[in-house]
C-alpha cells in the first residue's frame, strides 16, 4: 500500500515537473487600434502544422515611406511550445516575385495557447502583394 502511494506520488511529481506552461492573456476589451483585416486564401498541405500553429488572420498597413507592411496573427492550438519557420514572399503589381534571394526563412517559437503576431515590411515600394510560407520547425 505504502509502495503504491509512493509510486503514485512520484508519478504526480514527475507529471508536474513536465508541465509545459501555456499563456494567459488580458487586453483592452475595446482596443483603440483597429486592424484592417484582409480576406485570405489558404493552402494547407501539413495538417499537423495547421492543427498546432494556425493562422488566425492577416492585416496590412502602409509605412510612412509607402512600403507595404503585413502582420499575421498565429495561434498555438496546443498547450506546449511549438517551433516553426516562416518566410514572406513579395510580388509586384504584375504578380512577379521580388527580392527572391533576400527574403530570410525565420525560425521562431510560440508558447502553448499563445496568440502571436509576426510581421514584415516589403523590400520595395513596388511590392503590392505577398504570401506567407509556414513550416513546422525541428
Amino acid at each position, binding site marked *: 500500500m505504502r509502495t503504491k502511494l509512493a509510486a503514485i506520488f512520484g508519478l504526480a511529481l514527475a507529471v508536474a515537473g513536465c508541465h509545459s506552461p501555456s499563456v494567459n492573456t488580458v487586453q483592452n476589451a475595446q482596443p483603440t487600434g483597429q486592424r484592417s483585416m484582409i480576406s485570405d486564401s489558404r493552402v494547407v498541405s501539413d495538417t499537423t502544422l495547421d492543427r498546432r500553429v494556425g493562422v488566425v488572420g492577416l492585416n496590412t498597413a502602409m509605412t510612412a515611406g509607402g512600403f507595404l507592411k503585413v502582420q499575421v496573427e498565429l495561434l498555438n492550438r496546443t498547450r506546449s511550445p511549438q517551433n516553426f519557420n516562416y518566410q514572406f514572399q513579395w510580388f509586384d503589381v504584375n504578380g512577379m516575385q521580388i527580392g527572391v534571394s533576400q527574403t530570410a526563412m525565420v525560425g521562431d517559437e510560440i508558447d502553448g495557447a499563445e496568440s502571436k503576431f509576426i510581421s*514584415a515590411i516589403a523590400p520595395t515600394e513596388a511590392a503590392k502583394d505577398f504570401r506567407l510560407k509556414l513550416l513546422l520547425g525541428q
Partner: protein
Amino acid sequence: MKNKILIPIIAAGTALLTGCGTNAHYIQSGGSQSVVSIGQINIQDYMQAADAMTGDLIASGVLSRVPNPPAVLAISRIVNNTGQQIDMDLLTKKIRIGLLQSGKAVTTTTFGLGGTAEDPMAKGIQQENQFKSDQNTTRLPDFTLSGSIIQLAVKAGDTSQSTYSFQLSLTDPKSGLAVWEGEKDITKQGTRSSVGF
C-alpha cells in the same frame, strides 16, 4: 565459374554503394534545411538579421530626410565581439542590397574606413575626373553605418545556448548623432549531442 558470378556481383555492389553513398545535394540558402549550429553564426542568421534591420531602417523613414534622395551611406566600423572569425560583408552586403533595392539609399564605394576605398579603381577615376573638371563632385555620405555583433554563450547541464546580438547605428556625420538604432537578437539552443564543430 564462381568468379564469373562473384565478380559482377561485387562490381554491381560497389557501384550501388558508391552511388548511394553520396548524399550531397543543393538546398535553399538560409532555408529550413540549413544546418543550425550553436557555436557559429549561420547564413540564415545573417539573412534574418539583415532582413529585420533593413526593414526597420526603411520603416523608420530616416533615410528620406535628406536634401537629395536617395541617401548616401558609408559603412563604418562593425566590431566582432564573438568567438569566431566573421567577414562583416556577410551582413553588410545584404543590408546594402536591401537598401539599394528599396530605392532609399545608395552606398559609397569610394569612401572607406581609414581612407581605404572599397573600389580603388572607382576612386581613382573619380579623382581623375575631378582633376580634369577642376570641380569637387564628390558627394559626401549623408549617413554612416556602424555597430557590433556580440555573442552571449551559456550552458546549463547538457543544454547549450548562444545568443548573437546584431547591433547597428546610423549616424548623421554632420551632427555626430545616431538617428537610427537597430538590434536583432538570434538565440539558438541545443543539447550536447547537437553541439559540434
